[in-house]
């Protein structure tokens, strides 16, 4: 990690960029998202699921397991959602 000049780097002053934001998602009978209530807008229908992938990581300390969906919302907005497979909650994150 390269610290910018003049700014002393201290872990307590770091702020995460692109932290996941919890969202309310309804899924269909196959477990695919149908609607999503994004933090900055009303609940909207999901037009299509463009891509899906899974991340399993950090199994050696606290397991992270996520199922990602890149979806097209009604109106054309592209959003990345993921379901935390450990606790079942849904989150939105920038692509």
């Amino acid at each position, binding site marked *: *990690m*390269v*610290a*910018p000049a*003049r*700014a*002393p*780097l201290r872990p307590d*002053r*770091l*702020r*995460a*960029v*692109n*932290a*996941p934001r919890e969202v309310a998602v309804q899924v269909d009978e196959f477990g695919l998202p149908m609607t999503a209530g994004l933090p900055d807008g009303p609940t909207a229908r999901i037009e299509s699921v463009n891509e899906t992938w899974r*991340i399993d*990581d950090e199994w050696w300390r606290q397991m*992270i397991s996520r199922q990602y969906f890149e979806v097209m919302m009604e109106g054309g907005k592209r959003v990345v959602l993921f379901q935390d497979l450990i606790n079942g909650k849904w989150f939105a*994150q*920038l692509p």
Partner: protein
Amino acid sequence: MSRRPTSSLAACVWIPLFPLRCEEARHEGLAGFPTALLAPDTTRKLWQVSSQARHTGVKPGMTVSQAIGICPTLRLIEPDPVHYDEQFAILLSALTEVSPVIEAGELGLVYVGVDGLQGIYGSAEKIVQALRQAVRPSDRQTVRLGWGVGKFTAWVAASRARPSEAVVVPLGHERDFLASQPIAVLPLDADLHRRLRRLGIRTLGMLATLPEAAITAQFGTSGKRIWQLAAGRVIEPVQGRVEPESIAAALEFFSPVGERELIVHALEQLIARALKHPRRIGWRVHALRVRAELEGGGSWLTAHLLKEPTADAGRIIAPLKIRLEQSPPTGAVARLVLEFTGFAPGTTELQLFARDAQAAARAGQQRALRSAAREIRLRVKRAALYHIIEVQPWSRLPERRYALIDFEP
């Protein structure tokens, strides 16, 4: 490191439209016509406009086509910022003969520290007279001089003076003098000026009667500063400059060199390297020296005082080429050392226009960024600017890749 000499008692020497005056000085007869200088950054717009042109309705910032439409006899001049800077350097050198404490403002504006000069010249009027004599003869009819405690009072006094005259603000009368002055004398941007006028504030006295905290809350740092200036609460001394120590660049040849072309090429490289030295920024080279250590133990030395201080590599090398042609080293050169030994101050304005453009732009951006960060922190009472830093850019988890950290300029 030497401390910068300062002087709280200041004289302000102001030659309005200095670049235009430079053009009038070198083009005889130009002064009788409506003239305008084109802007150095975009030649489609006017930068400075003579009073004759102004009377016809031509204004700075107008496009050339607009101006010609209004005044068909308008004479347009391509700007020559390097020439203006050289003329300004001559003015600075001449004023240095009167006082060692000189601070350059924009082109045509110089603050002169006058603390202690009474012992040499006598009264304030005699010092003012000496300053006027230092100005080139063609500018003596247009120069305005101001005198007072601190740069701001001196500047306001100069701005109130008639051409070729001086306004001296006696010690202790600064607040009375400033109170009656219009707010236009403050260093304001157009927006702040408009806002103050809308609030009915016309003079520095009216501004000074308002609470400082209220002005700061409304206008931020610049509001605080203008209040302090208007109330005469801040005295900004003239800050002279200390010439940088000499700058040297050396080159050792793998095998001694005798060809003149190769020596010239090596000198060009050394000049370029020495010009890039951080100590040189803001200064033009006035004196230089070249030493050559010759194969077999001899040496060769040449020293030059440039007619006009410059930061242009071509002008610096010109006298060296002549010397190399007329009396070259008597043997092959094993080591070549170039030294800049004397400097003359440059101006920030030139740096923006010409040779130091990139360095000045970088410095300007940093200054602007620092000032903006301070302003935001003052207004919102917390840091609201951040650096983005890489944390684990390789991580599969997007939130682990980057983080924000407070921006501390």
